[in-house]
C-alpha cells in the first residue's frame, strides 16, 4: 500500500525567510500529487497539483511555488514567507479517484 512522508512535522520561520517542504511517496509509481493548505479551523485549500515529473498546476496565485524533481517527490517552496503563509500543509496522493493524505507540516510564520 502507498505511504506518504512529509517533513518537517513542525516548522517555525521568521517573515521573509525561505521555505522548503518535502513530500515523498512510496508504494506507487507515477502518482498524481497535491499540496493543500489548511488555515486554523478551516477546510483545505488546494494549492498545487502535479500529474508527472516537471508538471505543476497552480490553483491559487501567491508567493508559493511547487516542484516535482522526481516521480515520487513533491516540494513546496517560497522565497520569502508572509505571516499569512502560516497553516497546516498537507501533501496528498491521488489513487483511483481517492486522495490519501500525509501527516502534514505545521508552519508558523512569526
Amino acid at each position, binding site marked *: 500500500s502507498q505511504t506518504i512522508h512529509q517533513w518537517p512535522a513542525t516548522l517555525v520561520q521568521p517573515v521573509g525567510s525561505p521555505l522548503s517542504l518535502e513530500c515523498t511517496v512510496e508504494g506507487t509509481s507515477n502518482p498524481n500529487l497535491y499540496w493543500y493548505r489548511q488555515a486554523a479551523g478551516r477546510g483545505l*485549500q488546494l494549492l498545487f497539483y502535479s500529474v508527472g515529473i516537471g508538471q505543476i498546476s497552480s490553483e491559487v496565485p501567491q508567493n508559493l511555488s511547487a516542484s516535482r524533481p522526481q516521480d515520487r517527490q513533491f516540494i513546496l517552496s517560497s522565497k520569502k514567507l508572509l505571516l499569512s503563509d502560516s497553516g497546516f500543509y498537507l501533501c496528498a496522493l491521488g489513487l483511483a479517484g481517492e486522495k490519501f493524505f500525509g501527516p502534514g507540516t505545521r508552519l508558523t510564520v512569526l
Partner: protein
Amino acid sequence: SQQGEEDPQALSIQEGENATMNCSYKTSINNLQWYRQNSGRGLVHLILIRSNEREKHSGRLRVTLDTSKKSSSLLITASRAADTASYFCATTHRYNNNDMRFGAGTRLTVKP
C-alpha cells in the same frame, strides 16, 4: 474557494447517539468523499460515493448523495468518544479528477 459547505459547523452529542452531518456543493461532481481529521493531524479517508450512487455503508457510517439537491449526508451510528474529530466533505469535479474541493468541516464532539 471552498466547494463543499458542511453543516452544522459544530455538533455535540452523547456517546451512543447518532450524529448526522450534511454537505452541500455547487458544481457537477464525479464523486464525493468524506474525511476525518483528529486535532492537528492528517486527514483519514472514510468513504467515497460516486455521482451515480445514492447511498453507501461502511461499518457504522452511512453516506447519502442527492445530486438533484447537490447535497450529501454522513451518519455515524452508535457514536463513541473516539469519534470526536472534524469531518470534511470533498467533491471531485466531474471533468477534472485533480480538482478536489473541501468544505470548512463539522467539528463533532462525542461526550462519554
